[in-house]
């Protein structure tokens, strides 16, 4: 009898521990595994968000990092963990997110885009200005080099409204590029469509 109770105890212990730490496994699945994810340069997305055809482990991972996310018919969520060279994004460096084409969203249908920076803990980075995101429902003007840039650094570059602060701590960070009402091309040619470059300065 005692041996059965011991066995049951250890079975339940294993069961409860794996349930408790399941979130960490999902973090790994979300960040490291490819699954049905699409990688385009630094950016990664999952076009199966919110769809019944998505595997249960991927559905769980999506519920963990983006509960209630729209499917790709409505919004495409790109995430970046590395810069153009494949190096982890880190707050000890300054970066420039360079657009050479307009974000591919249906501006005429009130579509819009945004770039948000998250700290290593996946939450918004503390800053006095409460500045976490740059977004637009309008087309932006490209400069003389046919570029539009958003700057990431700990301190604000002079006279630049297109700046997002990085953490004062030395830590990795991630970027989210959300495209609400993305053009069909972004979904159909997700692997090759031109996305903003993340350049370490």
């Amino acid at each position, binding site marked *: 009898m005692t*041996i059965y109770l*011991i*066995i049951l105890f*250890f*079975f*339940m*212990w*294993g*069961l*409860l*521990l*794996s*349930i408790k730490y*399941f979130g960490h*496994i*999902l973090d790994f699945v979300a960040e490291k595994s490819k699954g049905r994810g699409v990688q385009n340069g630094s950016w990664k997305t999952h076009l199966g968000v*919110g*769809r*019944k055809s998505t595997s*249960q*482990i991927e*559905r*769980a991972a*999506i*519920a*963990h*990092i*983006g*509960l*209630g996310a*729209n*499917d790709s*018919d*409505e919004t495409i969520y790109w995430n970046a963990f590395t810069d153009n060279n494949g190096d982890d994004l880190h707050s000890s460096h300054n970066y420039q997110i360079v657009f050479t084409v307009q974000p591919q969203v249906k501006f005429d*249908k*009130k*579509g*819009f885009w*945004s770039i*948000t920076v*998250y700290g290593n803990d*996946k*939450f*918004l*980075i*503390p*800053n006095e200005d*409460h500045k*976490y*995101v740059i*977004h637009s*429902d309008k087309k932006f003007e490209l400069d003389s080099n046919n570029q539009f840039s958003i700057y990431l650094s700990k301190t604000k570059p002079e006279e630049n409204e297109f700046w997002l602060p990085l953490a004062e701590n030395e830590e990795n960070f*991630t970027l*989210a590029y*959300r495209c*609400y*009402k993305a053009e069909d091309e972004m979904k159909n040619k997700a692997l090759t469509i031109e996305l903003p470059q993340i350049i370490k300065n």
Partner: protein
Amino acid sequence: MTFGIIILLILATFLLGGIAGLFVSVLLYPKWEIQKVKRHMKKEGIGYGEWKHVSKFVDHHTKVIVKPNCETLYSLAFIHKKDGPYKLTMPAFDTYFSFAFLDENTNVQGYFTNTDTIENKESSFLIYYDENEILDKSQACIILDSKLCWIIGRFGVGSLEDIPEVNKIQEAIRLVKLNH
């Protein structure tokens, strides 16, 4: 020897429990997460067919949802099949909006968005559970295939100054049972 076998048995049992836990978690995790939101709303006294309006953006102090977004405001509601069909009415709104209808496993069943509306006019959207319930086939509608549905409304906010105006729109959204 016997002691060694017992230790091995314990380890194997522990491992087996861990694997069982993983299976359970994979299967049920999305449902648990939705139920968490539902329980949270219930605690605030928000029942089926009632809205919870998120009227301001989160900031770095908010540690509830990872990777929160800061460019749309949310209105959330749960509805249940037992209450029958609903009519969702959205006031005129000149910016991006969408209502996503999710089942209890986080699958999106459909949308009601600004592209379904006539500009600058109030619009309605009907929510059914059965095709036979549809009375007016000319009106935009969705047929849900789950008992529980989580409605997530998102409203684009151009700038921080626009928030009070968007809050007024949120308060004016109506979700009414068709059977009453």
